[in-house]
């Protein structure tokens, strides 16, 4: 329990360090991406679904597995969909004198 707490606190510090440097431009993908990561509960859901000794535990785990999978798959996909839209300046509009329009 105590060593878990150590891991938790250290991971939180790493999170603060890494995420405070994410620019505002990417805050929405950051949220949906971290959201997908919080779907890591899927691991717990798998453990619960494997509980053969109790049908209740198994079916509750099954429900958890579905919602966690929605979270993981949907989260990563929608983040990817957003990130592919972010493009740097196109070459033709870089020079103010060009007549791209």
């Amino acid at each position: 329990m105590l060593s878990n707490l150590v891991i938790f606190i250290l991971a939180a510090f790493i999170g603060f360090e890494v995420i405070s440097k994410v620019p505002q431009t990417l805050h929405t993908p950051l949220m949906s991406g971290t959201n997908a990561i919080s779907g890591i509960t899927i691991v717990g859901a798998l453990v619960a679904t494997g509980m053969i000794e109790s049908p209740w535990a198994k079916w509750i785990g099954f429900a958890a597995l579905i919602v966690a999978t929605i979270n993981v798959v949907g989260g990563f996909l929608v983040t990817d969909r957003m990130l592919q839209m972010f493009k740097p300046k196109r070459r033709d509009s870089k020079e103010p004198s060009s007549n791209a329009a």
Partner: protein
Amino acid sequence: MQNIILLAYLGAAVLFILGMKRLQSPATARTGNRLAAIGMLIAVAATLLQQRILSPVEMIGGFVVGAAVGMLLARRVAMTSMPELVAVFNGFGGLASALVAGGEIARYLSVEPGGGAVAQVAQSMAALAPLDVPEAITVVLCILIGTITFSGSFVAFGKLGGHLSGNPVSFPGMRVLTVLAALGALGAGGYLIYGAGGSFEAMDMQAIMWGALALGFLSLVLGIFLVIPIGGADMPVVVALLNAYSGLAAAATGFMLDNTALIVSGALVGASGLILTSIMCEAMNRSLLNVLLGGFGGDNDGGGPAVEGARPDLTVQETSVEDVAIQLTYAEQVIVVPGYGMAVAQAQHQVRELSDMLQAQGVTVKYAIHPVAGRMPGHMNVLLAEADVPYDQLYEMDDINSEFGMTDVSLVIGANDVVNPSARTDKASPIYGMPILDVDRSGTVVVLKRSLRPGYSGIDNMLFYHDNTRMLFGDAKDSLAKLVAAVKNL
């Protein structure tokens, strides 16, 4: 075997961190997201390996159903509705944590007092240890945070999507009921913990079951009560906060299952959500407590006590499309200030078209993005990216504020409170102290707006009456299309 799985979890955690690190630049962000997805795959594969496939049909079925729904949601969602989708995903994350805790409880309930089913339990892969007090505390936290995240997120979803009123909902005695629900949840959690014990004989199964059920129900109610009094304008903060909760719920699940992958990921997500929450609060100059107590800001334009043109003693200067077109074309630098009104009018593409034409004429065009532009952190940036605006033309408030003094024309499109100079000057204003974009310092400010109605906060905007401000009334999309045509004809 156990070591391999632990190493796999460590690998997954490292990939999550590296993935988030790559989100520090739009150029590397996409590979970062993929790294995180690979990390998730490794964590899932390791877990399957550890559990062996005990019930393959259910597991595959769960994966297929969940993946199909997730894919459908991710593909279908419009970028303007991104806040709703994130809220829903948050909710599912919380629900999953609460359900996993429920599954743990169900396992204990299948153990008969006196050890009747213990032999059967021993056959199971994960041996069941008695629920002692520390573990019971993690179960309580898991149900509490997970369920609040779930119901709170769905209320936020309803408010963001317009299914529920965006106005702060309140009724007499609401605060009292909220406090009662919170106390009740604590009591139920305490009852569950009271049922815990060092051995199966010492455990009170009835207390554990009823404690868990009551806790789940009261947390559900509590989540609704906590979010429903908060106004639509504050939803970005709430969504960010619920994001943090979903991380904490995952971490609590990790403590419960003694699983480091969940603890590390949960901590990362919790940190991320808290950072975003504090950024949003700072950008609105409000404390988190002030947001959570609610009652501020309605959902629609004019939700406050406002009347049209609240200052009849002052006059605004109207301008025409032709005049604006000339001003823009002869400017050296133009800064576009988009607000949510632009997104509502779906005018992003016209904005980009106009800025492309101006750039072709040699005008420097920049976009100034206020942190609370849009309905979630960074929302405006995604909407502009969708309209093909290159991300290196988007500037954050602190980077661009010094440039307004050197700017010929600022084009304010559907933004209001974030450019209200009263925030700087008028100590009596409710938004005094909120950091704003200093558009009033530019040569000319052109405000594209439907009418003189105030924004979310219902506060009149003195910017509209300034000497260097010109109002271009009308639908933003319509006005911009006309501007594009006018610039073309010059």
